[in-house]
């Protein structure tokens, strides 16, 4: 397999009135779990649709598996779960899965065997003969997930795969994704849940307003932030920490969640001074840890900047 599975070279997509994706370049190496992060409306789904050749980029090129062929032509090697989930409601689950497998080029018999195995594995062995509309939302998601993976694709592209799942189903799906990655195949998924991406991805790209803000290995991105972040948990009197966290000579930015907080130290401040100030304030601490920034705070920092810059630029163009 080539080293780079997905390569986007300055792709741009405009819709009437606005630019959804602007000169975006990305490389997804083989075997990676790649997270495409961004706020709602950032252009994640549009990017994925261009990778799948559902939309054609106005400018730039998409290269898959290092060679020629569009997403549709190579669909036998790609599993795709779109953001808009959908199944034929009045079709039986097994028939539906066989059809999805056939659409990927599987033989009918083969598709059937695989579908039965997957249904068994995801805890739906008795549901094959039921109609899709009789299934709960979570079950339908699983069925669609099976449809995505039925043909054993080398590349799996999941658009918001974990949204709307309960914790049990979420765990099941997460396990499957991890297993795919372990077997050396490539996974690209989009999400706006940072904890999820932080736990699962080797690499991420953050996009906002159609433009790439940052990309690379998650470890590198976090190291770049340095060890200027302090994680706090409060045992009691958490409210008393308020004035300390608002002190701009000590704290550059604070993400205060009430019982916990993530703090970025101000330039010139050091952890000792912060600890002393907190102890003096009378707050009860159960955790005080100096570490790299979380993906969440990187995301807020980067996207926040971007969001502030972009309107100004739009105004200049107007």
């Amino acid at each position, binding site marked *: 397999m080539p080293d780079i599975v997905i390569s986007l070279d300055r792709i741009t997509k405009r819709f009437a009135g606005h630019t959804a994706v602007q000169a975006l370049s990305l490389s997804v190496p083989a075997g990676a779990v790649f997270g495409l992060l961004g706020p709602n409306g950032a252009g994640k789904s549009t990017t994925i*649709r261009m990778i*799948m*050749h*559902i*939309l054609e980029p106005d400018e730039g090129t998409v290269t898959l598996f290092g060679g020629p062929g569009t*997403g*549709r032509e190579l*669909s036998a090697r*790609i599993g*795709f779960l*779109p953001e*808009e*989930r*959908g*199944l*034929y*409601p*009045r*079709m039986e689950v097994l*028939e539906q899965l066989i*059809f*999805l497998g*056939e*659409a*990927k*080029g599987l*033989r*009918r018999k083969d598709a059937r065997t695989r579908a039965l195995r997957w249904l068994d594995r995801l805890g739906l062995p008795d549901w094959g003969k039921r109609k899709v509309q009789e299934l709960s939302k979570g079950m339908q998601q699983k069925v*669609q997930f099976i*449809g995505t993976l039925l043909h054993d694709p080398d590349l799996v592209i999941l658009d918001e795969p974990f949204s709307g799942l309960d914790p049990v189903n979420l765990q099941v799906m997460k396990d499957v994704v991890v297993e795919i990655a372990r077997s050396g195949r490539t996974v690209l998924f989009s999400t706006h849940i940072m904890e999820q991406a932080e736990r699962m991805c080797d690499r991420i790209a953050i996009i906002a307003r159609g433009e790439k803000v940052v990309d690379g290995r998650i470890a590198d991105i976090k190291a770049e932030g340095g060890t200027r972040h302090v994680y706090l948990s409060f045992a009691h009197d958490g409210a008393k920490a308020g004035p300390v966290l608002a002190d701009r000579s000590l704290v550059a930015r604070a993400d205060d969640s009430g019982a916990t907080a993530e703090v970025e130290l101000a330039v010139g401040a050091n952890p000792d001074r912060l600890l002393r100030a907190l102890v003096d304030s009378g707050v009860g601490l159960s955790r005080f840890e100096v570490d790299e920034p979380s993906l969440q705070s990187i995301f807020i920092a980067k996207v926040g900047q971007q969001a502030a810059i972009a309107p100004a630029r739009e105004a200049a163009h107007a």
Partner: protein
Amino acid sequence: MRKLFAVIRREFMVRVHTRAFVISTVLGPTLMAFLFVFPMLLESRDRAPKRVVVLDAASGEFGARVTDALAGARRGVGPDAAPRYVVTRLAAGAGNVAPLDSLVSLTGAKDAGPEALVGVVLVADSVIETGRLHYYGSNVGSLSEMGELQRTVRQAVIGERLARAGVDPAVLMVATAPVSLETARVSNGQVSGETGESSFILAYVMSFLLYMALLLYGTQVMGSVVEEKSNRIMEVLVSSLTPFELMLGKVVGVGSVALLQLGIWSGAAKLLTSQRVAIAGLFGAAPSDAVGMPIPAISGSLLVVYLTFFVLGFFLYSAAYAAVAATVSTQQEAQQAAMPVTLCIVAGLLLMFGLLDEPNGTLARTMSLIPLFAPFVTPVRHSLSPLPLAELLASAGMTALGVVVVAWVAGRIYRVGILMYGKRATIPEIFRWIRTG
């Protein structure tokens, strides 16, 4: 190819496996049998001769002549045909005060018992000059009975006119003997043995079947596209299938269902018509009643022509319906947006009726070359009087070209439209899709 077949198979199985399909497939022949048996039963009930009075105010033999003509009228042909009327002749004048009023009071009266009349024929000398004969009856609403009555009395009036002009009664007998027209159809220089009436029925039935198939199944293609759009399954599909595979698969899959159902219906109709004497017996009707409807015979060449144009027409219109569906998001919007397509189908059927009188006129020839109408017009023309091969090929060729053009335009609209959600596309937008597709 395997993918295309998967789409065709899905569209076919999903439809054939529904209760609606099974019910309509069974209901069709049941309805046919009903339409078949019901008139026979009515006919049997009406077989009793109708009581009619001839009120004779004329001089000479005129009244008797009318009375004889009515008494001689038979229902159907052959030696065992039943008489139509039981006729009583009453002379107007002395002893009969205001006879017409009293007779009219007996006409159609339910409480009059065996005295009840169906009608009164008023015979007067003035009829000879004016040619206007009066009939008072409870059955004047029946066009066929009035037509029959008119034929019968006309014969008598002509006879009386000739007699008064001094024509020899023997000559008169010969001159007024009834004439019936026995038609036989000739195709390609060979007598086919069908009557003109049966070709007409065949043409009518064929066009109507195409019309029904387009409205019922063409709109199913539309519904299927809208369903995929509203269920959001489209995105999964277009990531592995080309829009053209999707559209073609749908049209062929739904079209196969249409052919299957129409095949079953035609088979049932054929069985019913061939067994109609037995069926008539089953319901206690006389075998002679069952012969009322002519059996259309389909020749091999006509079947080929019909099926060819049926398939072409189906492709043309269902591709158009698929394109319409791609521009909308809900079934309601689809119904509205499909109006132009539906109007073309209705126009095709109406045009076909317009051409029945002159199947080889300029208008008919022109319509055969317009792809939108040829599927309705050409098979009907061919069934009325066989067309030369060159003309058939030209018509089929133009229609096939039309199919390619419509499929190309529909494919482009489809490709962009199927991923548009939320709003209905405007006409300028659709043109942009076709240009840039």
